[in-house]
């Protein structure tokens, strides 16, 4: 079984895992594979570092879907009929669009867009990146413009931020407890500290001592501005969630053989499971290949002999250096094998794909296509 079999028929593929494990590369490789099978494919990245742009040899990615030049695809040996697009999500822009779309009037939209709480919500709040990414995936998916959307998730170290982003944002948009506290002000249509009546007064005054009253004023303005829009948001978030939990979506866990990232991958897997989502596949990137699979001598004396047979001069301690290097590379392979085996035990039953550490960084289509070769070579199940 290869990875494209595993995700066949899935319309939304989310690549999750900790930062620095090659998630962007894997997402792009999965998208490229789907495109090569004739599917209209989009890969979405939310990483501000423009990694995908690098990987795809594109100069710029905006919030727009950018079609990859078919000639580039053809040049990399991928069918010229493949239709693949890429986009980098502009967080703030996406939030603004969502607000404009959901607001009942342009005035309401403007009032929200100008609010300082909204500005921080849309740019800095934990989970807001994740929320808008999933929201955008839903929108693109629902538009029917693509057969497959691959999402390269933010390099969050916290799986829960990702999974509970919607709940968190919705809670900010509509919190009953806070509404009750603020009720007198909401009725008055504006916030003043003088209106604070006990017992809610003490809570608000204490909070105000902590951050200053201006913040509370902004917050209640924000809630007033948002009135009537909550249902739309909630409805939308529910649909996003349903999509991600459905058979249309697949979660691919990406990791490296590093024990720490494996730990995080397992944590992510369990968090998904708690949410009723089963990991579809695991991709382990940068696995050291074992030089010993090629056979031959591995001790100093035998290496010296081999050099003599090959008529290579053992100058400047060449045999010693080769021996040391062989030992080091073998030990790297041992460590990686042990870690992959551990991962396989922990995730038994889930297809696992290994991509060897390559001689060069992957940052072009040909490199991605090479990775697809490894992802197609099947789960070596031990």
């Amino acid at each position, binding site marked *: 079984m290869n990875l494209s079999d595993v995700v066949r028929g899935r319309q939304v593929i989310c690549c999750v895992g*900790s*930062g*620095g*494990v090659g998630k962007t590369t894997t997402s792009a490789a999965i998208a490229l594979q789907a495109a090569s099978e004739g599917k209209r494919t989009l890969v979405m990245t939310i990483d501000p*570092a423009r*990694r995908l742009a690098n990987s795809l040899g594109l100069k710029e990615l905006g919030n727009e879907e950018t079609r990859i030049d078919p000639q580039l695809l053809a040049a990399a040996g991928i069918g010229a009929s493949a239709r693949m697009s890429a986009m980098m999500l502009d967080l703030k822009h996406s939030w603004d669009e969502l607000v404009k779309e959901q607001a009942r009037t342009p005035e309401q939209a403007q009032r929200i867009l100008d609010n300082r*709480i909204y500005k*921080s919500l849309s740019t*800095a*709040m*934990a989970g807001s990146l994740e929320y808008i990414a999933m929201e955008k995936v839903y929108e693109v998916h629902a538009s029917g413009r693509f057969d497959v959307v691959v999402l390269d998730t933010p*390099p969050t*170290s*916290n799986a829960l931020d990702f999974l509970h982003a919607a709940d*968190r944002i919705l*809670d*900010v948009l509509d*919190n*009953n*407890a*806070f509404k*009750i*506290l603020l009720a007198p002000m909401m009725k008055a249509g504006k916030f003043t500290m003088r209106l604070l009546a006990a017992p*809610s007064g*003490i*809570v608000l005054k*204490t*909070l105000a*001592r*902590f*951050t*200053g*009253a*201006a*913040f509370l004023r902004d*917050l209640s303005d*924000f809630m007033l501005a948002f009135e009537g829009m909550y249902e739309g948001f909630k409805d939308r978030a529910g649909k996003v969630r349903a999509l991600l939990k459905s058979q249309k979506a697949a979660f691919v866990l990406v990791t490296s053989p590093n024990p720490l990232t494996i730990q995080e991958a397992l944590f992510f897997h369990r968090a998904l499971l708690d949410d009723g989502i089963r990991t579809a596949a695991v991709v382990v990137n940068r696995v050291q*290949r074992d*030089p*010993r*699979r*090629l*056979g*031959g*001598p591995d001790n100093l004396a035998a*290496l010296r002999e081999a*050099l003599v*047979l*090959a008529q*290579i001069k053992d100058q400047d301690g*060449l045999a010693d250096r*080769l*021996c040391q*290097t*062989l030992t*080091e*590379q073998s*030990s790297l392979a041992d*460590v990686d094998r042990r870690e992959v085996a551990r991962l396989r035990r922990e995730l038994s039953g889930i297809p696992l794909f290994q991509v060897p550490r390559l001689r060069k960084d992957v*940052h072009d289509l040909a490199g991605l296509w090479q990775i697809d070769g490894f992802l197609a070579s099947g789960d070596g199940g031990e």
Partner: protein
Amino acid sequence: MSALTESVLGRRLVVVSGKGGTGKSTLSAALALGAARRGRRTLVCEVAARERVSELFGRPPSGTKIREILPNLSSVHIRPREALREYALMTLKYETLYKIAFENAAARYFLAAAPSLSEIVMLGKVWWHAAQEMERGRNRWDLVILDAPATGHGITFLTVPSVFLGLVNEGPLARDMRGMQELLADPARCSVCIATLPEEMPANEAIELDRALRKHGFPPGPVFLNACFDSRFSAAEVAAVTRGGPLLLAAGESADNHQSRAVLTAYYEKVLREAVPRDLFKVPFLFERTGFGPSSVEKIAASIGALP
């Protein structure tokens, strides 16, 4: 004094920033070890979801209470919820008041909506340890090392004080954020380092991070290029061995792998030296069969000249 002791270990607050997986925690541990050996009372603050530094020294996790790992070396895991509670209690003085104000549904909402409150209280705690905490009439810590969150979040994390002060300019939090902002901008007391790897993406991100950090005026500390491979073979040697016949296949592949990583190391070292106006320290790749431990930290500290 070496460049490192001068520009890093002699400061009050050292921030180790960089992309995830670039070895920030190991580096924080190595810097802390060097400082502690020099007799500086050192505290490592970890803000990631999982703490790592105590484990690197072969010790149990420190948790949210400061724990001594070695003489002069302590660590603490700063988590938003506990930091908030501690911070609020410090500000509000009364436990009951804290409970009424913070432990209710409305406050949970408030805390979620407040701009980066988690980061604020975590940073507030770091600042308190670095600048405020006293013991016997002097600062309790000579050096506080902050193992910062991964790049994207890292710069956001450090700019939290100015973002917050743009929104709020009264109250105890604002006062403390002003203190933190001053400390983070003071080259005599603070140094912000970058950890990276000799690979395309981490190197590019280090260059972007350097620009962003300098743009915001954070005092530039060195770049640490982790996991470096030394050049061990000439190109001619690799070519000869890889063509050396069946007996040398494994040796040839190993040599080729090693040398290609050495070439990448040299290439990205050059790229970084040209693009990033900071000192650069190379940290060798360590072949540790059983994972990183105290001896790895020792080796890294020695390689960058952190040890006395």
